[in-house]
């Protein structure tokens, strides 16, 4: 059955407009960041190219309907895992395809750009997770604690495989993204509160306990649990950067100096005074905050919030569980990225290397996020197909 709406009407122009705003913010921020000229390359046109490529990709993605994503979800998941395996065994020498950057073996070095498989794996993981949870609910019409526990187990298996590969790269930031996605889906997928509340509470309590032990019981952690002392450094530099003169503390202090000194109105485009390393990628938020002050930085946060709000609205419109779960996963992914990335620059969270979605320079990150958003576009595009076919939903 065909929709009675025109092709143009079926495109989510609001979402497209929000993305356009991100495109503008990204280019302005990157062009300001690289006034230092420290990288010997102009990233603005490159980022523009990435945006154009990803828009083309969205076009392709919209051609397929959600059903097709549902059908291929496990294959995509398997493909992603395969890429992670290939990356793990890729030669890691100087100038070779798997050469580590900043100590993490997370990229394929391709002729035109570096590809980070984990960025795409996130979306594939969301698809697989959504398909699995949707299928579970179809099979188990009557929900019991037992079926919920079974679902939780399956989610755990799906999570652990990519998580293991990513942790060994090592890439803690991305690993946390996977966990965030999973937590969101556990909530949305309808698992009983009787399971969620104690287990989330337990994990949170364990986290707080570990944090407390890091500060007060180092001896125990190193001798009994075999943790390396350098793992604590991250916590210390986070809580008290002024007392720890290492690299991370230096980054955090520089970031806070940059952001704080931006004050309300900022120092104007390219008016920065503080040198923050990696300010075109992971620390791009410091550029926005220093140049445009509280007004600029909170505007960007509100822009992200509008994106999330819009995605949530779409989620609630979609009728089938698979699509709902996919959207929820994507929302969780973007939210976590934003919260972690901005949070680490303002001392809310310890520093982990993950980019600010849609704004940080980087092909893999941008295309990875656009891949996810492309699927949302597709769901919205094909959504009206089901207007008159409620019963077809389950086929």
């Amino acid at each position: 059955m065909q929709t009675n709406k025109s092709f143009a009407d079926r495109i989510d122009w609001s979402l497209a407009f929000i993305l356009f705003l991100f495109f503008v913010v990204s280019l302005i921020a990157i062009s300001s960041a690289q006034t230092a000229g420290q990288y010997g390359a102009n990233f603005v046109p490159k980022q523009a190219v990435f945006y154009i490529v990803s828009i083309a990709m969205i076009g392709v993605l919209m051609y397929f309907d959600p059903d097709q994503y549902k059908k291929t979800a496990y294959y995509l998941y398997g493909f992603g895992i395969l890429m992670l395996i290939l990356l793990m065994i890729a030669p890691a020498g100087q100038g070779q395809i798997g050469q580590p950057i900043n100590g993490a073996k997370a990229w394929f070095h391709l002729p035109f750009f570096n590809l980070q498989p984990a960025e795409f794996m996130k979306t594939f993981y969301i698809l697989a997770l959504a398909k699995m949870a949707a299928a579970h609910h179809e099979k188990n019409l009557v929900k019991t604690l037992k079926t919920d526990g079974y679902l939780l187990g399956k989610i755990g298996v799906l999570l652990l495989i990519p998580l293991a590969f990513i942790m060994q790269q090592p890439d803690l930031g991305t690993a946390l993204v996977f966990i965030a996605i999973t937590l969101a889906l556990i909530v949305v997928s309808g698992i009983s509160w009787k399971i969620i509340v104690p287990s989330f509470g337990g994990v949170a309590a364990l986290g707080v306990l570990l944090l407390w032990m890091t500060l007060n019981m180092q001896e125990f952690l190193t001798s009994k649990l075999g943790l390396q002392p350098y793992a604590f450094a991250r916590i210390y530099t986070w809580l008290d950067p002024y007392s720890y003169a290492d690299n991370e503390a230096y980054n955090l202090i520089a970031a806070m100096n940059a952001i704080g000194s931006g004050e309300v109105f900022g120092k104007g485009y390219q008016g920065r005074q503080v040198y923050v390393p990696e300010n075109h990628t992971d620390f791009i938020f410091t550029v926005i905050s220093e140049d445009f002050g509280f007004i600029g930085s909170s505007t960007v946060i509100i822009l992200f919030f509008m994106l999330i709000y819009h995605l949530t609205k779409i989620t609630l419109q979609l009728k089938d569980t698979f699509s709902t779960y996919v959207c929820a996963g994507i929302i969780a992914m973007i939210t976590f990225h934003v919260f972690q990335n901005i949070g680490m620059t303002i001392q809310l969270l310890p520093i982990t290397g993950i980019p600010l979605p849609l704004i940080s320079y980087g092909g893999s990150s941008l295309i990875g996020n656009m891949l996810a958003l492309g699927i949302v576009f597709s769901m919205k595009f094909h959504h009206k197909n089901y207007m008159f076919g409620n019963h077809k939903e389950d086929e």
Partner: protein
Amino acid sequence: MKPPQKRQATLAKSKLKSNTVFRMNILFFSIFLLFSILILRLGYLQIVKGEDFARAIARTEEVPVNTSVPRGRIFDSEGRVQVDNQPVNAITYTAMQTTKRTEMLEVAKELAKLIEKETNKVTLRDKQDYYIMLHTEAATEKVTDEERAAIESEDITKKEKQQKLDALIREKITEKELESITEEQLEVLAIFREMTSGYAMSPQIIKNKDVTAEEFARVSERLTDPKLKGVNTITDWKRTKTSDLVILGSTTTPEQGIPANKLNYYLARDYSRNDRVGTSFLEQQYEEVLQGQKSVVKNITDGRGRVIDTIPVDEGQPGKDLVLSIDTELQSSLGNIVEEHLRELKAGPNSQLVRDAYLVMMDPKTGEVLSMVGKQIGRDEDGKTVVNDYSFGAITAAYPTGSVVKGATLLTGYEQNAIELNQVMIDEPLQLAGGDVKRSLFNQSLNNRVPLSDTQALEVSSNVYMFKIALAISGNTYQHKWGFSVKAEDYNTVRNSFAQFGLGVPTGVDLPNEGSGLKGRFIAGEPGIFLNLVIGQYDTYTPMQLAQYISTIANDGYRMEPHIVKEIRKASTDGKTLGSVETVIEPKILNRINNTQAEIDQVKKGMRMVYTGNRGSARSYFGDADYTAAGKTGTAEISYYDDSESPFYNKPSINTAHVGFAPYDDPQIAYAVLIPYITTNTKAVPGTTHKIARAAVDKYFELKAKPSEESPTVIKAPYNEEKEATE
């Protein structure tokens, strides 16, 4: 009509759907909270704390830079230069935090064309690193893939792997390859290594030895050339001593920088790693005063953290000058007296153990050290006997000093109510239980009983009088061949009392590492040792302690803190007269002894009798002096333990000491002389110590009578004996 199962499915589905909507709302609400936290925190940082951060940035841009302000100079009491700064031309290089090694290398290449640089400091490691820099590809290819893989597979951190790899590469660079580095390249390397040995923002001296005027001019002309970015020409200072007086101390050179064991101490005080710091004696003691204040500049940085301009914020200040209480003319004359007598002594009989001699002279009223002489016999390269300055021995070398302490013993006796003023006691050889006999030197024969008053006891240096005081302090009375016992508290009583005079405790002199002498062990079964203690034959004292002790008696019981620095002055503005006074070191009373003025006067009287009385032990040395003086001699019988290889090890020897003050009525000087191991023949003790004391006091009054030619605030050349003699 739907089958029941289908209806149930629809029901479950709609239930699931509404549940999902509910849960999506929870999710959305959580996200809303998270974003609110972000905005709140941003608001806190940017609005509430924004100004603080803006100020913090402005502050971190201000850095003290090592502009080589000259260190303070040291003058003697008459304004004669003792330690000076000589200007030397220097070429420096300052790296910025963002300067890359390749940029430094380019500057080094450019600079090598302009100056000559010695290459003897270049190490093998430097050459290897330089070779790798020049031939990176060839060098990395030296390591085979297998070796690389082997290192990769090891269970070590990335950094260690890289270090291992680098070490392997260095190993594989052959001699021949290193020889391919040309002379010119070697010079570049020599310059480059100096550049990289420094720290960002801290000027590193590239060359400060033998910089020719041409080199200096060539580099100066091109300072603005971007190819020489970071290079500067400055006037550096070289520390030079114009006196051989050891207690002036020494400093590190900029190449040595801060001593490694004090690194954190100095870095915390805004020093640079290549700063000169005082490492001994006065230079160390007055480091904070001598070290100037560095200039502070504000670095204007661009967005990449590169410094584009520097603006001076604070010009900095040269270090402050020290004026000593020591007059080098007196110091030099007394030094000669001590040296002559020491040489004479060494040339005489039984002088195998003679090695050093000390003389400290101070103003008993102010604590100003007028002279601090220490001389030690040594041998030069040719094996000839030479006499070296050993002035710091006056505060570190401690020996049993014999009867010179008897003044303190008497005063302790009064204080402890063991004796009364003018009390007469019998000097007789004391026969102790076990057959031991303790006697005075002047009264050797058993059963010879000589009644002595307290002053007479000092005059003839009666040991027995002192022993009887000690017995009274410890609650004993002498009885023939009667055993007695002494408690540890009795030792403490005597030592605490002696400490009031500075004996056995640090005197507080303004020099580092002052020694306070050794305290002998308390041995319960040997009460005789306690008797030795009160005649200066058990604990050891330094010459400075002796000087402080006699000063305290001369100064009516007030113990003054000795000091060598009299004034701290600002740097001279005209180079001709001393700068204005910053601080005058005020006389500092450490304590007053616990005796009445009458008791102190009694001891002074006794000491006067030592010099003038018929039986006075120093009458032959001071009896004919045309000034009034008082003092006390001391002879300690000891065993030689300093060198276990020596044939005299564990054999008896003698230390002699002499303390005194003059004039008697209004003391201007107090002095102490000490010669350890003066003889190996305990039956024939030379009077050198007392001769030195007499000659020194004569010299002091002779120089005092000489009219001073110029104001002491006029800067003068160092004291020169020959020149003064011919005038």
